[in-house]
């Protein structure tokens, strides 16, 4: 065990740094820039049963200390991910990868997870419950504890690998959703997804995003994310992966102190393609500053 090692749902990580889904593609593009095997793992682009283009453009906007996106889960669909993307990934990444899955019905989630569960390189299934439920009046699965729990049960019945549920912050009480997922059998939780937001272009007097609203990420959301990770980690026994605006080694330590077992890094990858590598390299020095011998001291393992 190195100084930076942590364990996530029984799977060891060399360090707790995990590029977040949707900011790292399927990995191989970043592998042209650096050896991505320095990462703890990474969560690949959100995958759905069928191919999706996503929302119309513009689907990116800037914010103070952050950005909005309304990409809308563009991906080639699970079969092409398995036949085309994962073979390319295997050539440059030799660790278990986190498979991020979205769906619009319980059956979608179960089928997509079942297919990815069979892939040897998949170490965890990260199930994003922020999509609208097409059979439940369009409300997001993740905003209702019972609906989120139903996704967890469907996925757990279809897959053997650890299931980490990615929670939305766009709820009144994230702890009640977290607890419902834990009770339904989730092996871990990751939070927060982006915060619903919008911008208006003063020239056109119209929303910047074609979709009107999008998700805010970046340093702007870090304190909100930290608070939610803290509240959730105290309320559940399963491991919590903290994310939301993490952009430095100090932020990683802060998330771990709030109760996270590992940390995902999203928007920072988009402005600095080397962000995760730099944060991993900076961690030992940052730990020295605060007298932290090993990260396991903070995470409990």
């Amino acid at each position: 065990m190195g100084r930076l090692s942590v364990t996530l749902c029984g799977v060891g990580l060399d360090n707790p740094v995990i590029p977040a889904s949707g900011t790292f593609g399927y990995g191989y593009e970043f592998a042209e820039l650096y050896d991505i095997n320095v990462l703890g793992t990474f969560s690949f682009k959100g995958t759905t049963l069928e191919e999706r283009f996503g929302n119309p453009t513009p689907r990116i906007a800037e914010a103070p200390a952050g950005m909005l996106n309304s990409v809308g889960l563009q991906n080639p669909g699970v079969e092409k991910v398995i036949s085309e993307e994962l073979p390319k990934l295997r050539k440059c990444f030799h660790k278990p990868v986190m498979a991020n899955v979205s769906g619009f019905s319980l059956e979608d989630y179960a089928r997509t997870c079942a297919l990815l569960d069979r892939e040897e390189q998949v170490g965890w299934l990260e199930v994003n419950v922020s999509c609208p439920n097409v059979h439940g009046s369009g409300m997001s699965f993740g905003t209702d504890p019972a609906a989120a729990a139903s996704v967890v049960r469907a996925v757990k019945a279809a897959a053997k690998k650890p299931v980490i549920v990615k929670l939305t912050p766009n709820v009144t009480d994230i702890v009640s959703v977290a607890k419902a997922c834990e009770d339904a059998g989730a092996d871990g939780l990751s939070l927060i997804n982006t915060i619903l937001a919008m911008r208006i272009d003063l020239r056109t007097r119209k929303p910047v995003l074609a979709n009107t609203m999008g998700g805010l990420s970046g340093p702007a959301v870090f304190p909100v994310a930290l608070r939610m990770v803290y509240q959730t980690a105290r309320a559940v026994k399963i491991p919590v992966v903290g994310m939301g605006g993490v952009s430095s080694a100090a932020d990683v330590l802060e998330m771990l102190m709030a109760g996270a077992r590992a940390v995902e890094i999203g928007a920072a990858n988009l402005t600095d393609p080397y962000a995760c590598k730099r944060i991993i390299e900076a961690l030992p020095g940052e730990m020295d500053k605060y007298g932290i011998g090993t990260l396991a001291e903070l995470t409990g393992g």
Partner: protein
Amino acid sequence: MLQSLFEIRENEPVARDVWRMTLAGDTAAITAPGQFVNVRLEGRFLRRPISVCDWREGELTIIYKVLGAGTAEMTGFPAGKTLDLLTGLGNGFDPSEGGDAPILIGGGVGVPPLYGLAKRLLALGKKPRAVLGFNTAAEVFYAGEFRALGCPAVLATADGSLGVRGFVTDALPEDYSYFFTCGPEAMLKAVYRKTKTSGQLSFERRMGCGFGACMGCSCKTVTGFKRICREGPVLRKEEIVWDD
């Protein structure tokens, strides 16, 4: 793609709200005209994607329009200031295609990448001509620079204050072997409809990362989804699918 630091050599206006910045640094990642750089501005989250006007070993030139607070701030940057750039982004134009007499059709800040392209077309022994469109005479830039290269340039202004009154499509010659174009999307669409030959069109989109990670700038094409920042910004006429 390369992330590296560049030092500003010159930063000066070339027309109303249009500035030229020359930067010294490692240009090895730039492989084609029409590629772009993504400029990090302190205190602003997203980088600013700006097409490369021209480059040589150790130096590149960008021409940018003041559109928002970020580009307004750039006009105050003095020579000697250091900027963090991602270079070598996008596919760029392929100057080898399209016969010996291509037409270059540029609109506004879509003109700059065509300048670097014109140089490379001339170096290949081709005889490019340019049609450059602007809103008004005060916004015109680089017509003289094209001519100085040996690339004839016809001007069009929407208000008729200089050159042909109207749009670039009103000033196109009859005979050309191919076209290369860059400008606002409405202009690209008009060029697409008016031109009779094949060609390459360079698109602009709001981008997140600029290097293919976020999928923020995707578009549909006849050969599937493409990222304007990665498989673009230059698309072949035959593969374009217009949004509406």
